[in-house]
C-alpha cells in the first residue's frame, strides 16, 4: 500500500515535471525572442552611445521592471490554452489531473521563470558590462579608462532582496488566477480586480480606523507609506496600534491575497468545462 502511494506520488511528480517541460517548450521560443530583443537594444545603445542602456547609471532598475513585466505576461497567459475553443478540450483531457496542471503552471510562473529571468538578466547585464568595460579600456580618453572600473552590472539582490522575489511570486499567483478566470482580456480584467481589491481593502481599513480611533480626518493617513507612522489629523497612533495595522496589511497582502489567488485559480481550472464549442 505504501509502495502504491509512493508510486502514485512519484508518477504525479513525473507528470508535473513533464507538464513544466511542455510549457517550457511552448513558451521558450517567445522568451528567447524577448531576450534577444533586450540584448539587441542594449548592444545597439552600446554601439551608438557607448553605454548599455539598461546598465547605465540609475537605470539598473530596468532589469527588475523587465523581469516583473515578463513574469506578469507569462502568468497572465498561463491558462490561455484552457480557454481556447479547440485547444481547450485537448488541454483539459491531457492525462494529468487539474491539480498537477495547476501546480506545473504555478511552479513555472512563480519559480522557474523568475529564476530563469534573473539568471538571464544577470548574465546579459554582466556580458554587457564586460563589453562596455572593454570598449572603455581601449578608449584613448583617460577619463573613460578611469570610469571603466566603476561599470556595474545587475544582480538579483539589487532588485530589493527576497521581498521583491516574494512579491513577484504573489503577483504571478494573482495573474495566474486572472488567467484561469478570464477568457478575454485577462490582463485588463485582473488589473481592474487588483485595483478594486486595493480600494476595498483600503476602505475597510479606513472604516475600521474610523471606528476604533474616532478620527474624522483620515485624509492624512499614511498606512501604506514608508514613514512607518500612521497619523490621523493631529493624532498619531501608538506604536502598538501602528504595528498591529501593519501586521494586518501584511497578512492581507502576503497571506490572504496569495492564498485566495491560488485557491480561486485552482478551482477555476478544476471547474472549467468545454462549453465554448458546439454542442
Amino acid at each position, binding site marked *: 500500500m505504501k509502495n502504491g502511494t509512493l508510486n502514485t506520488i512519484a508518477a504525479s511528480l513525473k507528470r508535473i515535471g513533464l507538464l513544466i517541460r511542455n510549457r517550457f517548450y511552448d513558451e521558450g521560443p517567445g522568451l528567447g525572442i524577448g531576450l534577444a530583443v533586450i540584448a539587441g537594444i542594449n548592444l545597439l545603445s552600446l554601439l551608438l552611445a557607448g553605454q548599455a542602456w539598461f546598465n547605465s547609471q540609475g537605470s539598473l532598475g530596468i532589469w527588475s521592471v523587465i523581469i516583473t513585466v515578463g513574469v506578469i505576461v507569462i502568468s497572465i497567459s498561463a491558462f490561455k490554452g484552457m480557454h481556447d475553443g479547440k485547444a481547450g*478540450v485537448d488541454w483539459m483531457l491531457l*492525462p494529468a489531473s487539474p491539480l498537477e496542471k495547476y501546480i506545473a503552471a504555478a511552479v513555472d510562473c512563480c519559480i522557474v521563470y523568475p529564476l530563469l529571468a534573473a539568471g538571464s538578466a544577470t548574465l546579459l547585464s554582466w556580458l554587457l558590462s564586460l563589453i562596455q568595460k572593454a570598449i572603455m579600456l581601449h578608449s584613448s580618453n583617460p577619463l573613460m579608462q578611469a570610469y571603466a572600473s566603476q561599470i556595474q552590472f545587475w544582480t538579483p539582490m539589487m532588485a530589493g532582496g527576497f521581498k521583491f522575489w516574494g512579491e513577484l511570486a504573489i503577483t504571478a499567483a494573482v495573474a495566474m488566477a486572472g488567467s484561469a478566470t478570464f477568457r478575454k482580456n485577462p490582463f485588463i480584467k485582473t488589473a481592474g480586480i487588483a485595483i478594486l481589491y486595493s480600494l476595498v481593502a483600503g476602505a475597510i481599513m479606513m472604516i475600521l480606523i474610523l471606528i476604533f480611533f474616532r478620527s474624522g480626518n483620515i485624509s492624512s493617513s499614511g498606512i501604506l507609506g514608508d514613514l512607518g507612522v500612521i497619523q490621523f489629523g493631529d493624532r498619531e497612533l501608538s506604536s502598538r496600534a501602528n504595528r498591529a495595522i501593519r501586521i494586518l496589511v501584511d497578512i492581507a497582502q502576503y497571506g490572504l491575497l496569495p492564498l485566495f489567488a491560488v485557491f480561486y485559480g485552482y478551482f477555476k481550472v478544476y471547474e472549467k468545462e468545454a462549453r465554448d464549442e458546439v454542442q
Partner: protein
Amino acid sequence: MITFHAVTFGYGQKPLFKDLDLDLEPGCIYGLLGLNGAGKTSFLKLAAGALRPQSGDISVFGSDPSKRSASGLADLCFVPDDPWLPAVKPADWVKRYACFRPAFDSARFDRLIDELVLDRDKILTKYSFGQRKKFALAAAIASGAHALLLDEPTNGLDIPSKGQLRRILAESADPGRVVLVSTHQVRDLENILDPVIIVHGGRVLFKLGADELSDKLSARHLSSLEGEPVIYAERDAIGWSGLLAAPASNAAQSEGKGTAAQEGGLVSPDAASQAEDGDAAARTGGTGAPDLELVFDAAIAAPERLELALSGEPDALARLTGSYKPEEHEIAKEAAE
C-alpha cells in the same frame, strides 16, 4: 464499461438530456446517431469529462470522468470533430504528449501514420483538416485507452481514407475496449457500427444491435405500401424505400407475396433467382438488409412503430400492416416532396 445513470445536462435553462440512462459494454463499436443539436457531441464530452452533468453519475471503466483524474483521463481518448494539434512534428508530438499515456503503443502509432500516409516531416498545424483528423484518430487508436470517443470521424475524410478508417476502426475493436462513434454520415460506417444508439429529444430512443435489426426488420424497395407491415418509408424515383417489420424472407412468407427483389427490381437477377430459391442469405444480402439510415430516419419519424416492430409482440405485424400513413411522419413527407 461506460455507464450513464440518471444524467441530466443542458446549456442554460433547457436540458439537453434528462435522466439519461445508458450502459455501453466493452468489445463493441457503438454508433451514436442523432439529428443536428441532438447532443451527440455533448454526450461524448460528458463521457470524456470535458463537460459535467447537472445531475446523475457517469462512470468510465470505474472512474468518474468529471473528476479528471490522471489515470481516468489516460484510460479514455476523445477525438473531436475538428481536432487541435500543436505546432510540432509527429515524432515531437509523441515525445511531448504520448508520455502521459502509459499504455501508448508507439509501434502501432508509427504503423498507423504510415498506413494513413501522413507526412512525418510536416508540422502538425500545417496538416489539412483531413490529415489532422487522421493523425488524431491514429493517436487515439494507439493510445491504449479503454474508451475511444470519436466525434464525426469520417467528416472531412476523402473516400480512400474513409475505407482506411473503417478498417482501422474495425481492427481497434478489442474485447476490453468501448468505441463510441458519433456520426451524421451513417453510410460511411454502417457496416462496423454495432450496436447503434439513437438519441433524440433529450433521451436515448433506441439502442439496437445489428443482429436485432437483421432478425426483426428488413429494408426493401416497394412499388406500393399497400398491405405491407411498413414502419417507415421514403418515396424515391422508382417507388418506396421502406423499412418493414420483418426480415425479407419472413415477410414474403407470411404475407404470401414476392420478395423485395421481385417487387423493387433493385437486385441482380442472380440474387433474385436465389431469393426465389429460398436462399435467405441472398434475400437479406440484396435489399433485405436493414439500412441504417432508414432505421435512423424511422427512429426519429416513427419511433412508436419501430418500437412496436422490435417488441416481438405477436400481433405487431398485424397492427402495422396497412396502417402506415406517410403524411403523419414529417421526414417521410419531406422525402416525398
